[in-house]
């Protein structure tokens, strides 16, 4: 097409041929010119065309070719040299461009072809993605169904509702024709049709559990397609024409149901399953899809979980009901016990008085009788009467004491007493009895044992006496040793008293008393019984010891009240025994005298007449009364500072002030609070000034308040000079004051 040899016609050409050539050239030129235009037009229309340069080239090529043919039109006839020139130029250019284009195409065409391949590849990719999208969508649908189903199933804790809901929801989601649940029977050998979707009341079908199809389903946790003819799937009475839909069965583990039911089942260890059977609608071309099967499996699992939750809940509700019942019963029992205790206490209280009165009469009159003239026989009788009645009186006291101790209504009477004298008294009391039995009694009191202590003297003596008395009672011969010392902290933690943890403090010490005897000893097995009341071992009882068995029990109670511990050790019968007890006693404040605050005794010895330079503080909000008190103290030689307000006093007070007189009958100003604050300010006793309360009335409340806040003395206003003098004397000597009226 491109080889156009334009030869100058040598001869006058055929007119027709010439005309045809002329026309063809014209059309060729036209075509050649229009092609680039079309190209440009369409490329402009399309958004992407990567080869613009090629286009230009191609366009140029075509245009030039067209131009050539066009110019050819003029060369058919005689033409001038100019035309020939133009023709030549056109041809040359065309030649150049065509060659260039030809060379370019070598590169371009493979590229264009590969574009095609890429397109194909992308199309395939797109198709693949589409497929995957479809899959994901299906999965998401399934997930949504599962969630919804789970929600429905788990929204209730009632077993029946759970199962019913499962079937209903599954039926809805998967558009099932029938859905059924087979539960294992009590014997575990059969499966019973428990729930179905369509039938309201399933007839009690049962199938044996060991069918091959059932085993197949139970052995895997996947949903298994089963034949529609298997006995578990024959749920619907179908007319012969219908083709039953596909059936799938899945196992539902009954997780812990067996654990919560009545435990009279033969087999509890095997895992038990229920069977869920799902049927697609008959006569439909539907098949079970993978995602539907997965859905079924997940639901089966969820059902199992929900069922176990329901079972647990049932169980816990039962347990709670049981507990409530027990609670009520216990409460009733407690109230009954309380009533009984109250009745007993009332009885005891009455009997206490009723028993003691005649007892008292008997003892008193018998002792009186003893004083009179009696024959020997009569005297013997009276002595026996006295002895017996004393014993009876002791017994009554013991019983009453013990019952009070058990109630916890017994309170120790704490007072300061002479500790050494307690031991001496016990020793004196027991010596005569012991010497009759030819037993020697030795008393060892440690040197560091304080002379005075704070505690319940009477009960302590009772305890020691009881222990020592027992020692004497059960020894036929030998010796008894009593040792008393202050227990040091290492020895306090005794392995024999494992739950006794004494705490050392500055105000208290622990008294340890050990009574060793060389008597009949005790069988180690009997030792625990010793402290139980009314219990006497055989050996003791036969010896007619005359005790009630209460002694040690009472001792133990007393010792416990005194925050201590008592125990007995013995190596065996005939090897003697050692009774030890530790009790907590308080340190007295002044070791030489047992002076009590508010004891109504007046000691008029050694009254100072003057107190030169004694620094005192007076607080009173009443100006007149304040200046009177100040004058009074000044008259006695004191260096007085008088204030009217609590804050002022606290500001001024220092260690130099020996005595503080404060009015506590000021309305609106709490003198007691001041006392507390002074105690807080001066924590060490010797730094603190003596606190004396001045009040217009000494009544119980005032006294109690004063004791409560730690005031050292109370004086009734108005104070006379002599009274003040003696008060100051007393205070400075003893740091403690009695009531001064």
């Amino acid at each position, binding site marked *: 097409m491109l080889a156009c040899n334009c030869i100058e016609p040598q001869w006058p050409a055929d007119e027709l041929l010439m005309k045809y050539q002329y026309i063809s050239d014209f059309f060729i030129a036209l075509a050649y010119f229009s092609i680039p235009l079309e190209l440009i037009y369409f490329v402009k229309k399309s958004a992407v065309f990567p080869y613009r340069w090629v286009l230009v080239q191609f366009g140029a090529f075509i245009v030039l070719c067209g131009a050539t043919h066009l110019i050819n039109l003029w060369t058919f006839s005689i033409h001038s040299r100019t035309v020939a020139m133009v023709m030549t130029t056109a041809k040359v250019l065309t030649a150049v461009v065509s060659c260039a284009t030809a060379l370019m195409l070598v590169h371009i065409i493979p590229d264009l072809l590969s574009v095609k391949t890429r397109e194909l590849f992308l199309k395939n990719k797109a198709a693949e993605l589409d497929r995957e999208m479809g899959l994901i969508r299906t999965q998401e649908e399934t997930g949504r169904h599962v969630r919804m189903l789970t929600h429905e199933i788990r929204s209730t804790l009632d077993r029946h509702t759970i199962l019913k809901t499962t079937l209903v929801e599954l039926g809805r989601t998967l558009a099932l024709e029938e859905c059924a649940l087979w539960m294992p029977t009590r014997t575990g050998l059969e499966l019973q049709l428990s729930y179905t979707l369509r039938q309201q009341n399933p007839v009690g079908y049962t199938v044996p559990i060991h069918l091959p199809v059932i085993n197949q389903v139970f052995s895997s946790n996947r949903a298994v397609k089963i034949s529609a003819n298997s006995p578990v799937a024959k749920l619907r009475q179908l007319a012969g024409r219908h083709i039953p839909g596909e059936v799938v069965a899945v196992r539902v583990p009954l997780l812990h149901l067996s654990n919560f039911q009545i435990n009279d089942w033969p087999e509890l260890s095997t895992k038990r399953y229920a069977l869920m059977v799902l049927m697609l609608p008959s006569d439909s071309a539907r098949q079970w899809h993978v995602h539907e099967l997965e859905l079924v499996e997940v639901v089966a699992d969820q059902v199992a979980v929900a069922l176990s939750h329901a079972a647990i809940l049932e169980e816990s509700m039962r347990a709670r009901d049981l507990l409530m019942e027990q609670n009520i019963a216990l409460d009733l029992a407690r109230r009954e016990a309380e009533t009984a205790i109250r009745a007993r206490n009332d009885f005891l209280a009455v009997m206490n008085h009723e028993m003691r009165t005649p007892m008292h009469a008997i003892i008193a009159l018998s002792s009186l009788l003893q004083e009179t003239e009696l024959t020997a026989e009569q005297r013997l009788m009276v002595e026996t009467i006295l002895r017996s009645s004393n014993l009876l009186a002791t017994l009554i006291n013991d019983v009453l004491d013990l019952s009070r101790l058990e109630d916890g209504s017994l309170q120790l009477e704490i007072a300061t007493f002479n500790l050494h004298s307690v031991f001496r008294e016990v020793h004196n009391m027991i010596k005569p009895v012991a010497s009759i039995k030819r037993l020697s009694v030795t008393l060892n009191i440690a040197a560091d044992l304080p002379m005075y202590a704070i505690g319940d003297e009477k009960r302590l003596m009772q305890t020691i006496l009881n222990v020592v008395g027992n020692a004497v009672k059960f020894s036929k011969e030998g010796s008894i040793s009593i040792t008393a010392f202050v227990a040091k902290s290492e020895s306090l933690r005794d392995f024999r008293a494992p739950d006794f943890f004494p705490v050392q403090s500055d105000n208290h010490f622990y008294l340890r008393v050990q009574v060793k005897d060389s008597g009949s000893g005790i069988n180690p097995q009997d030792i625990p019984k010793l402290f139980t009341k009314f219990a006497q071992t055989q050996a003791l009882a036969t010896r007619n010891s005359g005790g009630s068995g209460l002694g040690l029990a009472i001792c133990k109670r007393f010792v416990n009240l005194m925050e201590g511990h008592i125990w007995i050790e013995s190596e065996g019968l005939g090897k003697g025994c050692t009774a030890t007890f530790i009790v907590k006693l308080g340190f007295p404040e002044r070791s030489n005298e047992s002076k009590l605050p508010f004891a109504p005794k007046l000691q008029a010895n050694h009254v100072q007449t003057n107190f030169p330079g004694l620094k005192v503080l007076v607080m009173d*909000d*009443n*100006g*007149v*009364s304040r*200046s*009177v*008190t100040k*004058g*009074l103290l*000044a*008259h006695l030689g004191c260096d007085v500072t008088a204030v009217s307000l609590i804050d002022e006093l606290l500001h001024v007070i220092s260690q130099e002030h020996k005595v503080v007189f404060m009015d506590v*009958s000021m*309305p*609106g100003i709490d003198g007691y609070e001041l006392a507390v604050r002074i105690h807080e300010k001066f924590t060490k006793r010797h730094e603190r000034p003596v606190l004396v309360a001045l009040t*217009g009335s000494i009544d119980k409340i005032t006294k109690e308040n004063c004791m409560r806040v730690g005031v050292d003395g109370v004086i009734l*206003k*108005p*104070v*006379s*000079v002599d009274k003040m003098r003696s008060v100051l004397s007393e205070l400075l000597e003893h740091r403690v004051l009695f009531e001064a009226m």
Partner: protein
Amino acid sequence: MEVGQMQRQWVDYTKSLFLEGFLDGQFLQLQQLQDESNPDFVVEVVSLFFEDSEKLLNDLTRALEQPTVDFKRVDAHVHQFKGSSSSIGAQRVKNACIAFRNFCEEKNTEGCVRCVQQVKHEYYLVKSKLETLFALEQQIMAAGGSIPMLELNF
């Protein structure tokens, strides 16, 4: 009048005050506290008492004139007054205060008003008596004498 006579007059007057119950033993105590280091102790204390009492009585009257009487406040004032008067030894005033407090507890306005009058009456009585006594003492001192020691046996 010569010193001895004045002293006798003083003694009689004081005795009468005690016998009539205006003063009690506490006043004696006050007198005992008066010594060289504190020569005007009694006068000082009594003047303090007069000052305090005037104020207290005014407060009391005003408190009782209120439409709603604050018995707590009234009681507080009376308590103060009782304290001061007993420190001085003004026995009658003190007794009147005690009666007053009872009415305060009962919240009896009428009774309280009556008591205030009573207390005032007693106070002014004892005040004039004491002022007379002190005037006598001044005279004795001015004449160069000294105040005799009282020995009273009750």
